[in-house]
């Protein structure tokens, strides 16, 4: 079996598994967020944090809860890192410097998991498991809560009420992420991922010299790292490290994990708005983009005619031999399209165009299928924009799922649309214009520019993967990427929740033959086109000077 065929077969297996899983999981999640019963353990939590899980919140209240919770999360994680040196169970690592501690705290709370540190050389058990892993769960649950609030905005009318943030947050953890991660962790352990609290081992190498091996609760963190589209690896090598991702099967399983919730949420959406076909339309949009990107990636990575690449069967530089080109391509596309940012290969080493695909994947705004929750709400905002333009073309005030897209809605959607491009372009331009930041680049020319562009694209879109090469542990990059992550996460959430509130206040418009049918393939096609064109137009000059200049040079 050739490597191309192997890659395609893995892709087919992945699609089959996702197709099987998304209906039951999506329906289950809809039930979780619609149920009015609390588990006993949840009641304890509500009592502990002093929240009433049954009050309905309008969008400002929902947002206040979310921001307060996230702020406390950042503060806690920052202090934990700053105090690491005096905490027990830290493997003797010292406290993290302020800029990096800020960057890392923000990074994990925003579900970005950009890492400017080396996990095995900086973070002990307490920070990894008690701080970072906890945020892996709750930051993902926050994203899902916002998505569910937006879905409720579509589903509800004349109330403006979006549900209860605390209940959505807690249930996301207790009923979805914890059980899911537990099952996934067991599977990973069974396949060879480590799970212990052992210390650092110096191991002699075959060729002489020695290597440092850390133990740790890796499988449990690995599970939520993928399932919650976090991406922050226990080790610096992330999913390329054999302790995190030992076999081709675990590799495929990890890809499955990082895709399953974002794809399944489309089902949740369909169930909650009372039309699973609407969910399928969104699913189809996400799937088209994802499959298209995977196909493009495989094509760029396999199709090389130069000697070395041909012998290797593709562009093998930076890719693990045990995964090969096909599987690495699927992983790279999936991780950049989901805001996960875990890597099993080094995106910097992909072909010029392949690197461009990972960049463009993030630039789409992490919506195909995107992060846990953030993918769905991002895609729904794009749908609102597409509906607005297309809706005018059928001669009515545009409406989506019975809700009118009026001045207020379009204002909020347009603000959402502006944020990440502004962050990416302004920070990248500042880094290129200022004297010192370019010194962090490893490579000259277009590739060096791609490193910087990638860093801010990754941070602003809350992806967290790195192009590798760029030394991001400088005060400039720690601060700017930290700001990009913060603003790129919470500003869009403000607009999404305001949009949800505005939609939930409306009286629904009944669908007629004159209504734009948003569950039809035509609309899916339109949405795919709108996403590609709007993203393409925004970033084309930047992409031309980075990956395109490099990729087309050959």
């Amino acid at each position, binding site marked *: 079996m050739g490597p191309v065929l192997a890659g395609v077969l893995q892709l087919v297996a992945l699609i089959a598994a996702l197709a099987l899983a998304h209906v039951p999981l999506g329906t289950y999640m809809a039930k979780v967020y619609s149920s009015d019963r609390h588990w006993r353990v949840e009641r304890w939590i509500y009592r502990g944090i002093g929240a009433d899980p049954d009050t309905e919140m309008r969008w400002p209240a929902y947002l206040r809860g979310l921001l307060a919770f996230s702020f406390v999360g950042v503060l806690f994680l920052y202090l934990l890192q700053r105090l690491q040196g005096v905490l027990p169970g830290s493997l003797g690592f010292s406290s993290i410097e302020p800029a990096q501690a800020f960057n890392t705290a923000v990074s994990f709370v925003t579900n970005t998991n950009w890492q400017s540190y080396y996990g095995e050389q900086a973070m002990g058990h307490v920070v990894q498991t008690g701080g970072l892993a906890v945020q892996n769960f709750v930051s993902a649950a926050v994203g899902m809560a916002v998505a569910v609030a937006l879905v409720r905005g579509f589903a509800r009318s004349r109330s403006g009420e979006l549900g209860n943030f605390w209940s959505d947050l807690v249930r996301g953890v207790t009923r979805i992420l914890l059980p899911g991660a537990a099952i996934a962790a067991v599977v990973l352990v069974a396949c060879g991922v480590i799970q212990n609290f052992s210390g650092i081992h110096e191991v002699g190498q075959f060729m002489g010299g020695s290597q440092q091996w850390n133990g740790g609760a890796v499988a449990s963190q690995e599970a939520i790292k993928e399932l919650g589209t976090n991406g922050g690896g226990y080790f610096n090598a992330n999913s390329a490290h054999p302790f995190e991702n030992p076999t081709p099967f675990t590799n495929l399983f990890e890809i499955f994990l990082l895709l399953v919730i974002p794809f399944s949420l489309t089902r949740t959406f369909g169930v909650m708005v009372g039309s699973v076909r609407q969910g399928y339309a969104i699913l189809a949009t996400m799937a088209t983009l994802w499959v298209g990107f995977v196909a493009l990636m495989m094509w760029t990575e396999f199709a090389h005619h130069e000697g070395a690449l041909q012998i290797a069967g593709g562009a093998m530089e930076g890719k693990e031999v045990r995964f090969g080109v096909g599987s690495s391509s699927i992983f790279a596309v999936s991780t950049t399209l989901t805001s996960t940012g875990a890597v099993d290969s080094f995106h910097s080493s992909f072909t010029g165009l392949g690197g461009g695909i990972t960049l463009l994947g993030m630039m789409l705004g992490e919506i195909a299928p995107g992060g846990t929750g953030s993918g769905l709400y991002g895609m729904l905002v794009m749908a609102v924009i597409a509906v607005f333009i297309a809706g005018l073309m059928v001669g009515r005030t545009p409406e989506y799922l019975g809700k009118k897209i009026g001045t207020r809605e379009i204002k909020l959607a347009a603000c959402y649309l502006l944020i990440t491009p502004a962050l990416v372009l302004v920070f990248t331009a500042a880094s*290129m214009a200022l004297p010192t930041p370019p010194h962090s680049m490893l490579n000259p020319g277009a590739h060096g520019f791609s490193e910087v562009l990638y860093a801010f694209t990754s941070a602003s879109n809350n992806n967290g993967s790195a192009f590798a090469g760029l030394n991001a542990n400088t005060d400039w990059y720690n601060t700017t990427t930290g700001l990009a992550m913060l603003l790129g996460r919470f500003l869009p959430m403000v607009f999404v929740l305001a949009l949800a509130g505005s939609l939930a206040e409306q009286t629904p418009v009944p669908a007629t033959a004159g209504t734009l049918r948003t569950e039809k393939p035509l609309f899916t096609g339109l949405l795919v086109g709108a996403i590609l064109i709007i993203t393409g137009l925004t970033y084309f000059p930047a992409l031309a000077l980075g990956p395109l200049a490099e990729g087309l040079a050959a």
Partner: protein
Amino acid sequence: MTTDTQKHEGSMSTAAPARAPHGDVPTAHKTPEGRVGAGLFDPKQLVTSLPDAFRKLDPRVQVKSPVMFVVWIGSVLTTVFSVKDPGDWFGWAISAWLWLTIVFANLAEAVAEGRGKAQADTLRRAKTDTVARRLIEDGSEERVPGTELRIGDLVVCEAGDVIPGDGDVVEGVASVDESAITGESAPVIRESGGDRSAVTGGTKVLSDRIVIKITTKPGETFIDRMINLVEGAARQKTPNEIALNILLASLTIVFLLAVATLPPFADYAGTHLTMVVLVALLVCLIPTTIGALLSAIGIAGMDRLVQRNVLAMSGRAVEAAGDVSTLLLDKTGTITLGNRQACEFVPVRGVTEAEVADAAQLSSLADETPEGRSIVVLAKEKYGLRERHQGELTDAEWIAFTAQTRMSGVDVDGRKVRKGAAGSVIAWVKERGGEVAEDAQELTGEISEAGGTPLLVAVEDTDGARVLGVIHLKDVVKDGMRERFEELRRMGIKTVMITGDNPLTAKAIAKEAGVDDFLAEATPEDKMALIKREQAGGKLVAMTGDGTNDAPALAQADVGVAMNTGTSAAKEAGNMVDLDSDPTKLIEIVEIGKQLLITRGALTTFSIANDVAKYFAIIPALFAAVYPGLDKLNIMRLSSPDSAILSAVVFNALIIIALVPLALRGVRYRPVSADRLLRRNLGIYGLGGLIAPFIGIKLIDLLISLIPGIG
């Protein structure tokens, strides 16, 4: 003498149904197909509007459109840089074409406004300064200028007077020439009380004397508002237009970011981008096409209504018309012709159809009501009975139809023939000791159930008094209404027929006309309740009305079209006035509303899709020198970097002019489902918008490369 003839004319037009001439006869404003989509555009208008277009270069005008204001600033910048470096032909060429871009945008707006101005001038001529004859309390008159009238003043108008202000007739009847506002030369009757009491300032009394109570302040009269409307002075941005402007502004910001961040990227790559090039790139990317045409589209949309003699009081109402999902249509005059007509003669057992026809015709000769005339017509058309005249029959005693007897007939040659309402005729027969055939009752019942009105025909001769048969009168649904309703259904619009008929009759007519629903025995309260119910379900409702009792419903409806013949209360309550007083026009109004939105959406899509090609022209031109690989993106194989950038800018400017006719005329609208509309418009304006600039830019580049010293 003169007054007498005018009186006669006046009474003639009273008898004729006021709406009939407008309903069926296509007016000059309609297109041959009678559909929206066509409008007049004369290329000469582009030239005549040029001075206006240059006047609009004023930044205070430009700032209203965020997209065009960015172009304006860009033009100023490139001009300044060209002045600093006067030897650079490229800078001058770009500057010139950027200014032209703005001029073209202004031109679109000026042409749209110009058409309204012509109409406003006509209206102004009608609004000559009038002298009003105000009644003072002691009953005497004083002459005051029309501009000094206050609400509540009573003024007298006699034949030949121009009515000095809007008001209601409180005394008298007069025929009035309203051609100044409606363009319709036939005079109309205005009388005190009832639903035809409203008069409009600027119209002319042709006969009689009326006393008018002024209801509007000078300067706020109907004609003043009309002038403001057609001139566009009162034009406010509609909700959709505002929303679209926001989207366009945010896209402009995105592109501003993309361009503004480019210099450091380019410097790193080893090439320096001049201000002229950056501005050119920016202008090409921001949605100038739709930004330039947006206000022209809105003005032209209102104008299309004015051309159809409909005045919308706000653009919001026009937009709402496109969203309407329920149409309330009055049965009479809209769905059916004004009057019921005889459609068949049904004999009772033992009598032939011809006998019934003969008796029916004979008894109806003295019936001048439209129903009576229709019986005579049917007898002639279907049974070949020559129309007899009352004079032909000597010694005949004619019994005319009255509301009291509800019968008409004739006594001739000892034979008495009667036709009339079932109850009256049965009573007449029984009075004369005659018998009523058993099946006569059944036949009347059947006709009633079918939605018709039965009239009985009876005779008394040597054989005694007896019922001969039944005349079936029915409402006649106007031609083509069924198809129209079918179209409306495809557009997703529900039609509800409003009628005072009983539910049985209403149901039958509703079925025949193909409306979706009906409201029988409708009172104004029922109408109001229906509108509120539909609105509570999230639907937008449109209706027409003319009476004072329609006013609350007209105000409640999202689109309320008042008939110009109606009361001033109705006109005040509605948000549109139909000068032709043709309720069927509601359907066209809906189509115009949809067309307005479609045109905006289509040109927005086109504008955004255009950008793809512009990138393929400009990016390789800027960077192929430092990154030769990027020349692969120059898929149009443009001749030189300068020519590529200039071609994109020129295309960007010319496409505006090319689309002016479309913006003014509106994208053609067909009443089909949303799906088919979307597929069609996406195909034309989406795919077309992707492909067209590739061809256009290439052609312009070919031309530019022919200019010696460039290329």
